[in-house]
């Protein structure tokens, strides 16, 4: 196999992994603090819409990114209000967040642009362009295609892995965050508000999903199309469980999932399979790979994925 093709696969894997990785880290903050988050998809979707709509109206991708983060943060805080303050069911809240995002993006889209379920196509000035790192074309094809040549958000995402690891494992806030998910009573006994820690966690998740959504609509593609997140929020959820809620494992899982997807795109059209049943099997496994792996890990057949002990349980101070 030639080097160009390998570089292409890895480059495409990196780009595909980025939004999943950011959403996965978002879920990590939230779930480590004890708030289950199946609304990653919805937050990414509303962010993708807000980014493309704002970039189209103002002409600036930076404003687009800010709008994406604000929209996603608002949805995250709504989830937080329902789950933390009102002690509601976190799963049901997540389901409604996902629907709400799809509906609001569609409604606002047709009210603003008169296009059903999408924004106008963005010009290259309205998008994040791909960066060329120093020595872009001097260090070989792997450096040129895989390391260099992505949008800024890709590098931000990889930086976020390190940041997440540092924040969760090496800071006082991180200790409190993990404790809020494992033993909220202990956090409260230490005089720290569980609710506040959980709100911070949910808000950080909102910001990360906002960046992920912006990446989809104003870096990877040129505008929002209906439901363009294409279940990436759920792949991120799968990756989070597969990675057992750890940041570096999340990075490798997302790269693995991105890699499988990239290989899938590469072999499509190249490899011809005559057998219809074999084609069915290959296409099925390719589409369902992250989900099947997650079920296997969740069932403890390969290691055991244990979520935070207090995850999903509303915390009540006075008992």
């Amino acid at each position, binding site marked *: 196999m030639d080097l160009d093709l390998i570089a292409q696969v890895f480059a495409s894997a990196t780009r595909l992994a980025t939004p999943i990785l950011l959403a996965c880290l978002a879920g990590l903050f939230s779930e480590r603090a004890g708030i289950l988050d199946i609304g990653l998809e919805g937050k990414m979707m509303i962010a993708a819409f807000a980014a493309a709509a704002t970039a189209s109206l103002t002409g600036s991708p930076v404003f687009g990114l800010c709008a994406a983060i604000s929209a996603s943060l608002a949805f995250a805080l709504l989830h937080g209000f329902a789950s933390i303050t009102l002690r509601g069911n976190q799963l049901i809240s997540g389901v409604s967040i996902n*629907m709400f995002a799809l509906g609001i993006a569609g409604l606002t889209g047709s009210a603003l642009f008169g296009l059903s379920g999408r924004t106008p196509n963005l010009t290259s000035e309205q998008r994040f362009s791909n960066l060329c790192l120093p020595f872009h074309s001097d260090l070989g094809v792997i450096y040129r295609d895989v390391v260099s040549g992505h949008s800024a958000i890709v590098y931000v995402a990889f930086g976020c892995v390190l940041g997440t690891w540092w924040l969760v494992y090496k800071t006082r806030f991180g200790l409190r965050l993990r404790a809020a998910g494992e033993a909220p009573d202990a956090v409260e006994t230490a005089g720290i508000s569980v609710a506040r820690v959980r709100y911070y966690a949910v808000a950080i998740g909102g910001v990360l999903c906002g960046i992920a959504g912006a990446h989809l609509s104003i870096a990877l593609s040129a505008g929002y199309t209906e439901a363009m997140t294409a279940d990436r929020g759920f792949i991120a959820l799968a990756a989070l469980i597969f990675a057992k809620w750890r940041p570096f494992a999340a990075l490798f899982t997302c790269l693995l999932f991105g890699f499988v997807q990239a290989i899938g795109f590469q072999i499509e059209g190249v490899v011809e399979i005559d057998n219809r049943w074999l084609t069915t099997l290959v296409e099925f496994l390719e589409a369902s790979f992250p989900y099947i792996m997650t079920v296997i890990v969740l069932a403890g057949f390969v290691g055991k994925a244990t979520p935070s002990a207090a995850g999903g349980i509303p915390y009540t101070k006075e008992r």
Partner: protein
Amino acid sequence: MPQLPRWAENVLVPILSVGLAVLFSALAVLSIGESPLQAVQVLSYGAFGNPYNFGFTLYYTTNFIFTGLAVSVAFHAGLFNIGGEGQALFGGIGAALAGLWLDSTNWIIVLIIGLGASIAFGSLWAAVPAFLLATRGSNIVITTIMFNYIAAGLLVALLSNVLKPTGSDAPRTRQFAQDSHVPRLDQVINWWGFDIARIEANIIFLVALLAAVGVWLFLYRSRLGYEVRMFGHSNSVSDYSGQSSFKITMIAMAISGGLAGLMATNAVLGQQHQLSLGFVGGAGFTGIAVSLIGRSHPLGIVLAALLFGALFQGGAELSFEIPAIPTKMIIVIQALVILFVGAMENLIRYPTVALLTMFRTRNGRWI
């Protein structure tokens, strides 16, 4: 916090929560510069105004009765089955196989085998997550979500390779033969010598009503149903009284999945007469809203399913009459209902408790 009296918990709180959702929906309509009152008028005419429209309302209602019942049976066992979408998809494969193999016979055979196959396929798709929960402790919510996507991946792969007719590019099966089409309600009524216009709902609507009665009998009049509800209330009481948690989990999820699978017969055998992508159309998730509003009681679910059926049919008419209000409005309303009735019910419950406490009698009884 004190428990509310039953009438407040089961009627007042849900109604006020739906009221909040309606209020916010009205604000959404206002914000795009349309009149909410006119929207309600158009919507109700679109849903109930004439037999043809009402037929579509009943068609959607049928779907939502099945998926709502599916969510509620699992819920009574303390399990959140979010996988109705996938179970319905998988049930659809069963229903379609019945249609493809037997459509040279007649509709009675196709219907009976189709109902059986969709129940079996739906149950199977719910039984795997149930088995993994009961034996390996897998979180049922996550597993059923994953199974939604695994089913979707399987359906796409099957439709685009083996189930589509040879030579066709579209990912859907061939149309089933005319004789195998399950009769619509107007055709059934016209057998008795009447002459009424087309009603889109078919006799599977009656199957849905029977299923609601069946679920009621199962939950509230059978020993097994009692055990399921006991397990849902308290796993430990259930354990101490000698119930097998494995058995209860498997049974509750199999029934839940079977009900979700039945939804597919209505869409595949009753209306589209072929298997295509997206025939579930979110009915599995709407089932969550239906079950929440219906308070997981079969009667409540039938009424809530009618409400959502009217919303879907009326919403489609609404976007046709007033193009400024797209069908996405219905998704927003649905999301608001799930949010206020399901996730934020304490927004209503806390003030209700405070208010009713003021009127509590001296000996601590509710008025």
